[in-house]
């Protein structure tokens, strides 16, 4: 016989794991975006320096 509280257990673990892995996924995405941004800014800074020297 299926326990009537099984759905509560399922939703508890589902919500818990979703929150943790959702957060992990969001910061991994953010890291990727920031890496790209930092790289672009480094290039921009280099260009400005070259223009300044010229």
């Amino acid at each position, binding site marked *: 016989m299926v*326990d009537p*509280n*099984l759905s*509560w*257990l399922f*939703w*508890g*673990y589902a*919500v*818990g794991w979703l*929150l*943790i892995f959702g*957060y*992990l996924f969001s*910061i*991994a995405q*953010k*890291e990727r975006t*920031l*890496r790209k*941004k*930092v*790289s672009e*800014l*480094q290039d*921009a*800074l280099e260009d*400005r*320096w070259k*223009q*300044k020297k010229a």
Partner: protein
Amino acid sequence: MLREFDEKPAIPLWLLAAAAVAMMVHLYLIFIWVPTEATMGIVQRLFYFHVPAAVAQFTACFVGGIAAILYLVKRDPRYDDLSLAANETVLVFGLVNVCLGMLWAKPIWGIWWTWDPRLTSSFLLLFLYGAYLVLRPAAPVEHRGMICAVVCILGMADVPLVYLSNRLFRTQHPAPVLGGGPDSGLAPPIAITLFFGMFTMMLLWVCILLVRRRVARLERAAEDLTRRVHELEDVRSF
């Protein structure tokens, strides 16, 4: 700006592997090995996720708070980055703890929430760390670290209140099962599963903390580079 250590993976491979294996073993212990608790039935298995999440949350509060104090003393931005990373995880693990608590309370107590001392102090803790994350981007850059450190230390001060709330007051929340007096205690299989759950959650928390700290460093680097690019543009236009 991207230093050599920033090019390496944020989480060492051995730690990632240990966390993955521990999670598998923990799931086995929860759903196959540990016997079903007699009074509450199957829903009691939420305990093995609910309590470890709270332990990870409290650890994050202390790590964030100590890093904030170190930042105030040494003014080293690396401590501010660590504090930010830890404080964000406080909110994540705190939400897991509260959500699981509500999903456990509904079938057992018949209600989702009640304003008893344990739940209210937990809510206050979440509220404080939520305020920290809202305040951080709004604070002036030059005082941001200091303002956030003060809020974070206030948050850390709420942790003993949450911990002691069901020891000092009569609460709807159950009395402590560990160190709660002569009637407290756990059957060995339940205790083993719980302690292994705490160990697993700590491994997972450290992994998340390392990734978030890396992101905090990158955010600082991006801010610094943006300012330098603008400074050069201003000099040229002048």
